């Protein structure tokens, strides 16, 4: 609803002073928001309104920064947000057309440590999705709370789709059976690039292999890569699955439902990397 109000102000910016419009949006939205300590300006908490020029600059800058230092996850996130508008619209439409995806868009579940019932998940049988996901988190020393918040997407629903994509990333690792070493990450990126069409995934998919040694490159190009691409295209939209209600389901069953073949080879999780 605030989008409709904010939109005329954003159009105004192109004709008049950009500055005034930004402040107006901030005032409008902040006047209705709860006055919390971290009260937000913009369409959602953490939103920073930006002009197309700024987005372009951010895209270029974050791209360079991410290439120079791939461990700057905030830059990868910014790159994804500033270049992913078309892909996000596409994803959102796919979700809307899927009944489960539509439920997700209305209920807006978030995957955080605070919302997960870890003890219940630990008590599930081996091979169940919840148990395997927990095992993945423990083995790789990662937590679902380490995902950056979305900042530069100028649409509240699309921002949620982006956030969901980020939170589903770890679940994808479990679904695909990939560890968080470089080869595993590249394989997941190939899958995501095929699935979502996000330019950031495509870039990661293209440049990730540059950091692999020859034997892993071979594995990637001969078996893992084609499998990831093929499954990315043929699988159901992974964002449309209400994972939070499927912890008890077995991984095999879930894979079948999503039309994902089991991995041909599992790269050894020798290098532990925190995401």
């Amino acid at each position, binding site marked *: 609803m605030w989008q409709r109000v904010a939109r005329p102000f954003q159009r105004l910016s192109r004709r008049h002073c*950009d500055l005034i419009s930004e402040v107006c949006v901030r005032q*409008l939205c902040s006047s209705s928001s709860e*006055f919390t300590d971290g009260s937000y300006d913009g369409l959602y908490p953490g939103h*920073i309104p930006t002009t197309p020029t700024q987005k372009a600059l951010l895209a270029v*800058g*974050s791209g360079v920064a991410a290439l120079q230092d791939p461990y700057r996850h905030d830059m990868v996130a910014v790159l994804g947000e500033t270049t992913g508008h078309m892909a996000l619209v596409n994803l959102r439409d796919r979700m809307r057309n899927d009944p489960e995806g539509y439920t997700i868009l209305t209920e807006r579940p978030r995957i955080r440590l605070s919302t997960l019932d870890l003890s219940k998940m630990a008590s599930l049988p081996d091979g169940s999705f919840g148990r395997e996901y927990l095992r993945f988190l423990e083995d790789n020393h990662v937590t679902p709370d380490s995902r950056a918040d979305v900042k530069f997407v100028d649409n509240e629903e699309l921002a949620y789709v982006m956030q969901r994509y980020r939170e589903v990333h770890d679940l994808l690792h479990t679904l695909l059976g990939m560890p968080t070493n470089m080869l595993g990450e590249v394989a997941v990126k190939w899958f995501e690039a095929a699935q979502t069409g996000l330019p950031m995934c495509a870039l990661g998919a293209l440049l990730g292999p540059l950091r692999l040694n020859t034997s892993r490159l071979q594995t990637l190009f001969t078996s893992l890569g084609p499998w990831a691409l093929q499954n990315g295209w043929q699988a159901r939209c992974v964002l449309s699955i209400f994972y939070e209600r499927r912890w008890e389901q077995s991984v095999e069953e879930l894979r079948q439902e999503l039309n994902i073949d089991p991995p041909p080879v599992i790269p050894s999780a020798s290098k532990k990397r925190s995401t």
Partner: protein
Amino acid sequence: MAASVRLLVRRVTRLSHGHVTVCPSGPSGPSGRCCWAPSSCRCFSDDRNTHFGFETVPEAEKAKRVYKVFENVAQNYDVMNDAMSLGIHRLWKDTLLHVMNPQPGARLLDVAGGTGDIAFRFLEYIRSQRERQRRHVARSMQALSWKDISDVYAAREGGEDGPRESRAVVCDINKEMLKVGKQKADSMDMSAGLSWVVGDAEELPFDDEQFDIYTVAFGIRNVTHIDQALQEALRVLKPGGRFMCLEFSKVRDPVLARLYDTYSFKIIPVLGEVIAGDWKSYQYLVESIRRFPDQEEFKRMIEDTGFYCVRYHNLTGGVVALHSGYKL
């Protein structure tokens, strides 16, 4: 000991004086929530309010938030300065030193000195001045008579004091910034003659009349009560001491002003996000520049405090102003 008692007395007298801060609402500065949402407006409450960039916050909160901002940016502060000003900030600081023209033996207090740029330049300047003096003396002593030489030896034996050592004290409220400054000093091997002190510009931890020169470069706009910082400056300066302030100010030329605004609000936060991963802190920094009084008003504030011969120089078309005043 005396200094801390004086601090306590000052704090008590300040608390007993109330002053109301009117909610700012000029044409250039929208007053944030105040005008648009009376329900969340705090102007009419008991808390005194002030500005934090374009936001309005209680005074007590401003210092905390400013601290947070500089804690976040400390590691990338110098890199960001170079990126944002395209290296021009070095010229501004060099100009400050040239105008200051310190002589060997001067004692400098650099407030909000953080990463130490002014202090390093000061020591370097003094060193090169000393070198120049020594060379001058050496040259003038090339054609000495025997009488002159014996006079020189007599003077040395007389145990004349050597020239007084210059000292620079860097004072900052933020420990992270001081840490970065200290690391720089160690890596440049410039620790001699430097002290690093944690302190609040509104209540300096120094006795009266200790320093010859007081500088504050790009720091005074972050202080909650600028008039108190100016009072403190007057207090710690010796009679004949000089107050110098480098700060962002108002650009007069409308074309340049337009360009500067666009650059500040559009480009700088982007740079902050890409280089330092922190958009909001740099947004605050450019907003705080707009909230700071212009050249004439700041000159009046300095005069009102009790400084004399107050004047200012505009640098880069008014983007930065160098204010200077003397304590007589």
